[in-house]
């Protein structure tokens, strides 16, 4: 987090020195090229989202471009659909349960790794982060086969366990990052002033790692809410998450309902991000 802001504060002299030498037309063209490339990339990133919004508002029953008008009929259809509403509710339920379990497990694991003097810490960290690097569809497949072998059916806790596994790395990573950055002398000072280990933990350690834990929790929520490959194998018919329902709908229908559903989930996600900005500040996202 101590990146560009602190550099720019300490470096005006060096920058001036750099620009004194070298104005020149070539440098300017280079600068424009740099900006043009980056703006093109931003358009590539954002245009599809804008298109989704346009289709959600376009009244025709098929995908049409350019759009012919503005209507909210697809939103009405989406909110009136029992399947979509059930899926939305189930997705939220799974995401909340996943966020709770991943945050509690991940934050405690990070504490143990950073402060517990565990042997083989690096190996444990690598293992805990490995669900990020291994194809998520394998996690889904392997859990599916296990549940079949154990004959437990497809319970909600089984889905939440799968989601927890793939979201836990985010919490471990953001919490570890905060734990590494903060000054352990603060804890020592509290102890020297007579605080018990428990009181030190709750009054010094926990408030200091809160931003990392919260950032991880919000990541966990978003990743779980959008999780597809793990859910694909673990949802049961009639109890599907929103991405799976949207996917099944997309295979047969291509109308504005998908656009409306998309806009709703975009708005939900933005509410979460604004929540993040209010609580921990967006910048903590950068250092993933």
């Amino acid at each position, binding site marked *: 987090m101590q990146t*560009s802001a602190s*550099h720019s504060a300490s470096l005006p002299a*060096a920058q001036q020195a*750099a620009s004194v030498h*070298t104005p020149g037309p070539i440098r300017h063209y280079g600068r424009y090229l740099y900006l043009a490339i980056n703006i093109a*990339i*931003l358009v*590539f*990133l*954002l*245009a*599809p*989202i804008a*298109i*989704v919004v346009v*289709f959600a508002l376009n009244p025709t029953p098929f*995908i049409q*471009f350019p759009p012919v008008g503005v209507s909210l009929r697809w939103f009405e259809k989406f909110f009136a659909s029992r399947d979509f509403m059930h899926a939305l509710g189930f997705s939220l339920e799974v995401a909340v349960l996943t966020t709770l379990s991943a945050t509690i*497990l*991940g934050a*405690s*694991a990070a*504490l*143990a790794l950073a402060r*517990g*003097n*565990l042997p083989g*810490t690096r190996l*444990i*960290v690598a293992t805990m*982060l490995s669900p990020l*690097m*291994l*194809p998520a*569809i*394998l996690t889904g*497949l392997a*859990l599916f*086969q296990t549940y*079949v*072998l154990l*004959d437990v059916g497809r319970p909600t806790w089984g889905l939440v366990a799968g989601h927890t*596994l793939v979201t836990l790395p985010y919490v471990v990573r953001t919490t570890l990052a905060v734990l590494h950055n903060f000054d352990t002398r603060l804890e020592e000072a509290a102890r020297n002033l007579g605080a018990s280990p428990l009181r030190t933990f709750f009054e010094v350690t926990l408030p200091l790692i809160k931003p990392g834990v919260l950032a991880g929790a919000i990541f966990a929520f978003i990743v779980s*809410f959008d999780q*597809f*490959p793990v859910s694909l194998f673990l949802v049961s018919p009639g109890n599907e998450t929103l*991405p799976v329902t949207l*996917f099944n709908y997309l*295979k047969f229908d*291509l109308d504005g309902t998908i656009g409306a559903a*998309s806009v709703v*989930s*975009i708005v939900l*996600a*933005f509410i979460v991000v604004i929540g993040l900005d209010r609580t921990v500040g*967006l*910048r903590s*996202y*950068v*250092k993933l």
Partner: protein
Amino acid sequence: MSSTATTRLNGLALFILPSALLFALFFFLPIGLMALMSVLTGNPVVMPKVAFTTRHYARMIGDPYYLEVIWTTIRIGLVTTLVALLIGYPLAHWMARIKSRAGHALLLMAVLAPMLTGIVVRTFAWMTLLSDKGVVNQTLMSLGLIAQPLKLMYTETGIVVGLVHIYVPFMVLTLTGVIGRIDERLEQAAENLGASPLRAFLEVTLPLSLPGILAGSLLVFALAISAYVTPILLGGFQIMTLPILIYQQISANFNVGFAAALGIVLLAISLMLVIAYNRALGLVSGQRELQ
């Protein structure tokens, strides 16, 4: 991770236990069972007589179709990673170097917005853009630039475009962290010594950001080879990848053993990559942690 001489476990070490249990029960056990299923003739729970067999692997190696699927998956993964790197690097560089706080927040929003939009939704967006009557073809045709719609969907190109869009934010966020930690004064020193901005970038910033390039590429490759939604919807079942084949084996044929064998191959590809990554990282940066 202080490695002081006094390596005595303290109470906090116990906090690792819940996650350790989660990993044992829901990660190592299932993957072990999957490996076991891949060498069994059937499901030991429902079939009284099961034996060990290598027929699932023999089937894969013996049939060029399956080898082609494996190669297609790797190829799409490699191309996606390369394009995501080429697109992600400039943006990450801009984000790491921009001075204004508001500018930084706006760029961050622009990168996070697609991430928050969801895989299915974004694939849907690309379907509306790339189909024969999609936005791109309609626009080009109304401008008179093409007479026939370009075949953008149901091709590998279409799949790669969709996958790049979905995974480039991961690349950008990984790279931004690494580039942001490179001291800008090194670049300025190179320029003061007479290097052009391009040369300063190529000889100073780029080599120093190699760990980020490796980490971002590994992440994007791992995500791209396990993608299911985008290859199906943008490929329309005409381009087969391992995840599609795996799901098909389960849902259509309920051939759990063969699906498990395909899963083990996908796992092996990913593991080889992680090992290669760690080697490369060791070469690039001595001993930097996989954080």
